[in-house]
């Protein structure tokens, strides 16, 4: 194998793998310190995530959310923007999806409701990102600050809307009335039953296909179109992009709207797919998790799908762990996630020099690549 190819493989496969193993090793030490048998814990976690049909369903269901937010963060990142507002955009996206369904005639068919709710989620998520985008592009307010603030604004807005506007009549719980069954995104177990397969019921619904389609579209958009070129050019070198006739302000607006819209789709999975009503705090953790997913997935859709699966596994397996084993609270899942982020994100290149030295050493006679005069 040529040295360059080896380096590519080290970067793409070996490095992330080693990082994750390290994170797990450190997690094992933490478990051992709190008197939990790490091997037993790993078994419970893996069984919880993949051991039975319902568990697998939950894992993929969580994965779907992480794909949406991971893509959202990645798209913005390619334009050099750090969208921390995934939480708020997902939350407000839910309002869009919910309003689209609640205001349509309940007798309409699924072929109206499902697209309408998706459009609602896209629109509201996108619009929620548009304001910080505008402030960044035309007023110079930093996008990190504004999107964080918009997470809080979103939370307050949703509490108000849920308590005062959309609360089901005669109910104390701040949640909307149930969506008409026509508006439910079909469950995978129902679809499978339709084809004659029987699988255990789980929240997994067809939104997972939407997530995969989005991943393909994001890849196509970023790497196969002139707009994607303009976005990546802006992210890599803003000065050169301006020189090339690209308008950065426009890029900021467009990219943030796309990013927000993708984050908004979390609500399609959560609300239209599973809860079937507008509820509080359905989005919690996914927006921030998306940052880690994008980071781990190297901002590439394929990597994001893999990283999202890892996070989905930790989510579902971790919940199972907390449920099954005494001495482990739900917080330990957060610790695990933190360690994964630490080793895969912050210490991403820790092993790289060592790997390169040992697996792809420079041959003495090899002609220099690309350094000819």
């Amino acid at each position, binding site marked *: 194998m040529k040295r360059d190819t080896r380096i590519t493989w080290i970067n793409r496969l070996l490095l992330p793998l080693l990082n994750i193993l390290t994170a797990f090793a450190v997690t094992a030490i933490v478990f051992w310190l709190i008197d939990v048998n790490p091997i037993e814990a790993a078994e419970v976690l893996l069984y919880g995530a993949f051991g039975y049909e319902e568990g697998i369903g939950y894992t993929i269901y969580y994965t779907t959310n992480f794909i949406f937010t991971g893509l959202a963060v990645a798209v913005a990142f390619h334009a050099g923007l750090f969208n921390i507002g995934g939480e708020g955009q997902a939350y407000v996206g839910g309002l869009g999806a919910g309003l689209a369904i609640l205001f349509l005639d309940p007798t309409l068919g699924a072929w109206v409701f499902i697209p309408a709710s998706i459009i609602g989620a896209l629109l509201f998520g996108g619009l929620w990102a548009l304001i910080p985008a505008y402030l960044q592009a035309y007023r110079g307010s930093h996008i990190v600050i504004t999107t964080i603030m918009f997470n809080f604004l979103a939370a307050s807005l949703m509490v108000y809307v849920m308590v005062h506007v959309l609360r089901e009549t005669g109910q104390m719980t701040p949640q909307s009335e149930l969506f008409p069954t026509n508006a439910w995104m079909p469950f995978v177990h129902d679809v499978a039953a339709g084809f004659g397969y029987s699988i255990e019921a789980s929240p997994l619904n067809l939104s997972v296909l939407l997530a995969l389609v989005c991943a393909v579209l994001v890849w196509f958009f970023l790497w*196969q*179109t*002139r707009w*994607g*070129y*303009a976005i*990546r*050019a802006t992210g*890599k*070198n803003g*000065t*050169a*992009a*301006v*020189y*090339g*006739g*690209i*308008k950065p302000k426009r890029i900021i607006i467009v990219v943030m709207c796309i990013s927000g819209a993708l984050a908004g789709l979390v609500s399609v999975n959560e609300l239209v797919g599973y809860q079937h009503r507008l509820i509080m705090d359905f989005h919690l953790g996914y927006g921030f998790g998306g940052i880690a997913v994008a980071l781990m997935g190297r901002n590439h859709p394929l990597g994001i799908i893999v990283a999202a699966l890892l996070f989905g596994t930790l989510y579902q397996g971790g919940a199972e762990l907390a449920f099954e084993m005494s001495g482990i609270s739900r917080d330990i899942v957060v610790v695990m996630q933190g360690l994964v982020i630490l080793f895969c994100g912050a210490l991403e290149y820790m092993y790289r020099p060592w790997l390169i030295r040992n697996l792809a050493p*420079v*041959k003495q006679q*090899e*002609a*220099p*690549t*690309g*350094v*000819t*005069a």
Partner: protein
Amino acid sequence: MTMTDNFAIELTDIDKRFGAVHANNKVCLQVKRGNIHGIVGENGAGKSTLMSILYGFYQADAGQIDVLGQAYTFTDSHQAIAAGIGMVHQHFMLVENFTVLENVILGSEGGALLAHGLAAARKELTRLGDEYGLKVDLDATIDTLSVGLQQRVEILKALYKGAKILILDEPTGVLTPQETDELFRIFGALKQQGVTIMLITHKLREIMSITDQVSVMRAGQMVAHRDTQATSREELAELMVGRKVLLQVNKKPGNGRAPLLKVKRLSVSDNQGIERLKDVSFELRAGEVLGVAGVSGNGQTELLEALSGIVPMTSGTIEVLGFKMDAKHPLTPDRLRELGLAHVPEDRHRMGLITDFSASESALLGYHTDPKINSGIWLSNRKVEANCQALMQSFDVRPADPHLKSANFSGGNQQKLILAREMERNPEVLLIGQPTRGVDIGAIEFIHQRIIDMRDAGKAVLLVSVELDEIMSVSDRIIVLCDGEISGRIDAADADERTLGMMMANALDPIDPLQTMDDQHASSGQASSQETQA
């Protein structure tokens, strides 16, 4: 005194590899005490690596370093400084809002409280200043000093730390000819006091005029040592490149025709509101190269960026190929490109290409909306690569690999790729900034010829360069920028280094800003007799 004691520096078989690159291949060098020793070579020949090894930034893989007759192995620059080596970098390492005195003692403050150290330093610096003729106001802050004086501070800094051997990396790149003369005078004084000077430069004329010996590097090896008196510019150039080089550009006289670019009273301010370009007026005609000379940072960048629509203008008008723009009605870079204005920016890393992109993607910058490459919404990667391949072929970019990352090309090849991108579209007006900065001699010849070819094809070329040789040999007419204003206009045929130098320092009387070249085919001599207009 033994033989070795005659040498300030003796390098024996220095070897250094970076990955697959053999940067220094058994390099030997002997520098005599009290001499001025020039080191020349193309970019990437290994000069900087060698000096970095000598200064302790890098460690050699093999070889021996003797300084003033004693063997050393430097593991950091402090040890090199202690051994008596001082280095003046191309980019100054000064704290802008510190005074000269504070800058000099930086790193050798002499204790927690500054007062004592400052007093001692003042005394020592005054002595050094007298001894070497290095006069600088010790209490002036750096940002109030001219570039030439800042450089002097760097030299003082090195001497203060006890340097007996001074290494200067491209010291004249930022100086006017007059400042260069002054620097060389200082070199003379230093030499008289027994200081050894190593001068790294690519300006062969300076080598010829100031050095005692010269060593030539090529592809990591020392290829020749010469006594300066016994060599010539032609021989040195040939040694550097490894083949014969035309130092003079081959061109017929130009014939300027209809003006394609008219600039009237153009002013540009930066985002702090400081006026960078004041009342600049000129015309650029088809079939001519108009050179813009000046010390770097006197408004050239702003001129290029205003003309290409990148920075907004504050007043004045620009007429490009019949289309007018002013402060209220700007034209965007993409619109100007459509009209037939191409721009090769001064700084290829900051603006000319995207170093993280592949060559084929960088070769698309500015033209990514071209319908020839897009089919519907689909940007055809196959066509992008074919486009890049064609560009690489016509400008001989090496290696001709569209997939290679832009950052991995040498400076000359990056520049050729940008030139190919901008020139192959056959623009009517070409703005070109520092076309040969950091480009090796072989490529310079090629680039100059391409510029002349464009001119001969009836295109208008605006050439901004800090290299006076380049300006004088490629242009037909020259304007000089000083402090954002046009401080001189002259025909290339009448220009010489001295006159241009005076204009660059604005030492000639100012001339009417509205007056274009048409009225003034006069020579520099008459420029000084022009009436001053307030």
